[in-house]
């Protein structure tokens, strides 16, 4: 049999081994070679701190008492892991995005970084978990006593001092490896590695005992099953309400226990690890519970009646003379206890120092973060003091409770206590309308119910609550009996506490959330949490202009340490493209910085520290409105600028058009000048040459003289007409023409035009008119209109090349007034020339050279002056010139 001293020696050697592992893990992590330590395997194994000494020893005892019910404690976490997609995925993503350091930090961050909420959660966690730590101390000392000798001769003082030394050792370990590095993400490679190793030890120990029991004692698988059925727990017995309630409770506790949050979320390096742990951790849990029933059955069979079933894992190997196996089993239980205590203490001390000690310290400093000195030392000191405080509380609790059976029941009671975080946690993850006051109300209500209905009665009658209160309720009010609230009796106490505390908690949480109104910061954080997969930017705003980089640098140095802070600031400065080591305090940088600091001191404290430097404690509604005002002004201003730039663009376009027009006009003017000189020179040339002939040639006959003189005369007339036309056009174009308004009938005007034209060149033209349509009376410059008509009829006479030239004049009414259409049956004007015929000097052919090409140009000018229009339309068998007369010209006289 292993002596107690040997056992202590083995324990010390084991602890030294753990120290070494943690030390090397820390060192290789610091050198950046810790990749293998951050594997999914280590993550999965670290989750096994769920299995404490309570489950290591207690599960067998539980099975010996209540059969399969013990397994519900493992079913809940298995379901949570298998259903990781629903909750854990989001929880881990948010925890990483927000750099949450603890569950209190996460809940406080969700509800507007409220420190009140963080303190409430911290206090609840300390009250709920400290007895659990005491339970671990108890299990270690209890297991030690098994080796110390037969029952009845144990010295209780020895137990107490053993518990004390265990607590001291654990405190030392936690202080050494839990507060070594105050790094930004609050991860502890050494601790995680050590608990991963411990989890292997406890699994191996339990399986070894199980294998020994099944194949060594019972004689194999088949006989084992027979032995199970023949045992006192051989028939299926269950309390159905407990089966459901305990499964749900263990699932809730798995999510809410501070130590589980630490390993699940805070120590999570990679979300992929969670995916793997989703099936790997249920394997661990299954293996942990696989041999529980066989061990319990064999223990009930072998051990004398009345022996403690909680210690079967140790006493069976001892009774069979397997002291080596018993020692291994002891180490398994020791590992379960120590790993739980270390992580739970670490998680709780983080909460206590971040949410209680640091805010208090910052307040007492007055100037807050701007005092001189290294805040990092204060944080680390606070963390260490908190560790000692929590382990001290655990030890005190163990001593005060006397280590009796009351403590053994604390496991489930503790679960119910921490499960009170569930409504606030899940509500925060999935319900945007959940508010700070709702969370506070729910937590406080649930916690009060838990204290009253579960925690205080667990000490037994007359310990915390008097026997009369337990039996009859306070002041004799039966409805308030702690274990029969609202008069509902006969329910299992744990189920009763679970149902009432969580129901009232959730009800208050929802009701107060619905009634209260969240602050802006809360609403922003709520959106961040609930929609974490949609966007990961931080909407919180800092008025960065007020924060000087130097101040931020000084503060960061004091929290992260000088080299880390300088690296951070330099990296940011480089990212901003600045050469120095101080970056601009941009919004993005302040948010990054806040997250970095939050990793060390918690979200609420980091927020408070930065806000002291930056100015605004948080974003108030006024701030938001000011920002909105400012943006509205900026928007308006930019709209104005946009309008102006559009106006400029328009003006530039107009200028460009004008320039093009001027260029075109200049080209036109040049063309006009060359045309006019050509047009003037042709008759001038013939006049000059014929007058020279008349002057210089002797002996000209009378006939010839007359002929030459007539040519000169004709040319002179042509010249005069050209000049007249030019003058006319010039007057018309310059707009100097004064219209001589008269009233006359269209028929008369047309008649005059036809007669005039016939007198000229349109002699053979067959002109067809519909005089009944020409009865309109017009008020316009009749002479000018007549000039247009004459021109059109003359042109038809001159250019119509048909065998029997014909001109048809129609008068038609249209929607803008009336039109006079001149249709001839000549050859159509070629397509290319149609655009030119109204231009000056445009002539279709040079036959007869009779016109100067100004006629239609003049017509168009006249019609423009008269408010009408003239256009050309090709006809199937000829051409049509359409003269539009505006309505007022036609109507004015009617």
């Amino acid at each position: 049999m292993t002596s107690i001293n040997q056992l202590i020696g083995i324990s010390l050697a084991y602890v030294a081994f753990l120290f070494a592992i943690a030390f090397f893990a820390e060192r290789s992590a610091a050198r950046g070679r810790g990749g293998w330590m951050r594997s999914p395997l280590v993550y999965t194994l670290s989750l096994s701190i769920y299995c404490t000494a309570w489950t290591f020893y207690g599960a067998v005892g539980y099975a010996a008492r209540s059969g399969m019910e013990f397994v519900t404690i493992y079913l809940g976490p298995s379901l949570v892991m298998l259903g990781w997609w629903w909750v854990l995925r989001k929880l881990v993503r948010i925890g990483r995005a927000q750099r949450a350091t603890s569950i209190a930090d996460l809940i406080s961050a969700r509800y507007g970084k409220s420190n009140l909420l963080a303190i409430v959660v911290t206090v609840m966690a300390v009250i709920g978990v400290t007895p659990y730590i005491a339970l671990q101390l108890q299990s270690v000392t209890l297991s030690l006593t098994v080796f110390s000798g037969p029952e009845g001769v144990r010295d209780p003082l020895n137990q107490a001092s053993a518990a004390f030394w265990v607590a001291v050792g654990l405190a030392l370990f936690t202080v050494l490896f839990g507060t070594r590095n105050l790094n930004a993400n609050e991860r502890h490679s050494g601790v995680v590695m050590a608990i991963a190793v411990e989890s292997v030890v406890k699994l191996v120990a339990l399986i070894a005992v199980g294998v020994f029991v099944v194949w060594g004692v019972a004689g194999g698988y088949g006989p084992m099953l027979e032995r199970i059925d023949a045992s006192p727990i051989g028939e299926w017995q269950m309390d159905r309400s407990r089966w459901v309630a305990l499964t749900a409770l263990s699932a809730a506790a798995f999510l809410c226990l501070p130590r589980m949050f630490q390993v699940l979320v805070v120590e999570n390096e990679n979300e992929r690890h969670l995916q793997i742990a989703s099936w790997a951790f249920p394997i661990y849990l299954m293996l942990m519970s696989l041999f529980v029933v066989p061990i319990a059955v064999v223990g009930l069979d072998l051990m004398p009646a009345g022996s403690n079933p909680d210690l079967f894992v140790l006493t069976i190997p001892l009774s069979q003379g397997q002291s080596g196996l018993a020692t291994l089993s002891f180490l398994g239980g020791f590992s379960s206890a120590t790993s739980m205590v270390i992580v739970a203490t670490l998680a709780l001390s983080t909460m206590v120092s971040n949410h209680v000690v640091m805010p208090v310290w910052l307040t007492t400093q007055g100037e807050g973060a701007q005092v001189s000195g290294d805040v990092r030392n204060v944080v680390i000191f606070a963390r260490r003091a908190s560790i000692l405080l929590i382990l001290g509380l655990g030890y005190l609790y163990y001593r005060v409770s006397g280590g009796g059976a009351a403590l053994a029941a604390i496991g489930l009671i503790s679960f119910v206590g921490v499960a009170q975080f569930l409504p606030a946690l899940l509500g925060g993850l999935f319900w945007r309308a959940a508010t700070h006051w709702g969370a506070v109300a729910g937590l406080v209500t649930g916690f009060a119910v838990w204290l009253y209905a579960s925690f205080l009665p667990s000490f037994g009658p007359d310990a915390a609550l008097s026997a009369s209160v337990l039996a009859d309720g306070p002041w004799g009010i039966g409805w308030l009996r702690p274990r029969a609230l609202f008069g509902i009796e006969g329910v299992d106490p744990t189920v009763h506490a679970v149902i009432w505390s969580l129901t009232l908690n959730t009800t208050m949480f929802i009701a107060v959330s619905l009634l209260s109104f969240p602050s802006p910061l809360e609403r922003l954080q709520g959106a961040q949490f609930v929609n974490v997969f949609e966007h990961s930017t931080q909407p919180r705003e800092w008025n960065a202009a007020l924060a000087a980089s130097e101040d931020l640098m000084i503060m960061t140095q004091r929290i992260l340490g000088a080299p880390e802070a300088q690296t951070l600031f330099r990296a940011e400065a480089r990212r901003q493209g600045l050469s120095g080591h101080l970056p601009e305090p941009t919004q993005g940088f302040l948010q990054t910085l806040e997250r970095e600091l939050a990793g060390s001191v918690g979200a609420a404290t980091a927020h408070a520290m930065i806000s002291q430097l930056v100015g605004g404690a948080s974003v108030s509604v006024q701030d938001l409105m000011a920002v909105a005002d400012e943006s509205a002004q900026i928007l308006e201003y930019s709209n104005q600028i946009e309008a102006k730039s559009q106006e400029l663009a328009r003006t530039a376009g107009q200028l460009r058009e004008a320039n093009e027009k001027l260029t075109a006009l200049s080209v036109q003017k040049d063309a006009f000048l060359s045309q006019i000189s050509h047009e003037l020179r042709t008759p001038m040339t013939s006049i000059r040459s014929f007058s020279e002939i008349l002057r210089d040639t002797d002996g000209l006959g009378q006939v010839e003289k007359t002929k030459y003189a007539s040519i000169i005369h004709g040319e002179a007339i042509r010249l005069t007409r050209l000049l007249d036309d030019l003058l006319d056009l010039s007057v018309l174009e310059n707009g100097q023409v004064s219209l001589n308004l008269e009233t006359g009938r269209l028929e008369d005007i047309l008649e005059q035009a036809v007669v005039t034209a016939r007198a000229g060149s349109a002699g053979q033209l067959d002109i067809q008119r519909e005089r009944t349509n020409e009865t309109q009376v017009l008020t316009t410059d009749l002479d000018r209109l007549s000039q247009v008509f004459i021109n059109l009829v003359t042109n038809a006479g001159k250019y119509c090349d048909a065998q029997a030239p014909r001109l048809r004049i129609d008068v038609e009414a249209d929607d803008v007034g009336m039109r006079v259409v001149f249709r001839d049956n000549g050859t159509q004007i070629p397509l290319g020339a149609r655009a030119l015929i109204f231009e000056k000097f445009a002539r279709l052919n040079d036959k007869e050279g009779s016109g100067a090409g100004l006629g239609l140009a003049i017509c168009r000018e006249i019609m423009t002056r008269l408010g009408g229009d003239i256009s050309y339309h090709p006809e199937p068998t000829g051409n049509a010139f359409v003269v539009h007369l505006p309505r007022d010209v036609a109507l004015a006289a009617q």
Partner: protein
Amino acid sequence: MSNQPPTPLFLERRSYRRRRLMDALRLLPLVGVLLWMLPLFWPSEAATDAALEPVPMSRAVIYVFLVWLGLICAAFALWRGLWSDETPDKDAA
């Protein structure tokens, strides 16, 4: 959010399969709850009611652990189907 691209109406076969695997993953814990809550219907009052055949403990133990094993295998298979092709190099980073 309105500015998100609309969900495509039809998916290619591979991503369709992937989404159905995710559905299965989501349903898995519900299946677990269903199967593990099945013992609620086993006769528990057998000791007091002679007409009911009690369920032997060995069978109960085997049932609970078989369900456990089945769920783990299903979770593992789904994980293999969904993510095992991702490069594990990212872990080291």
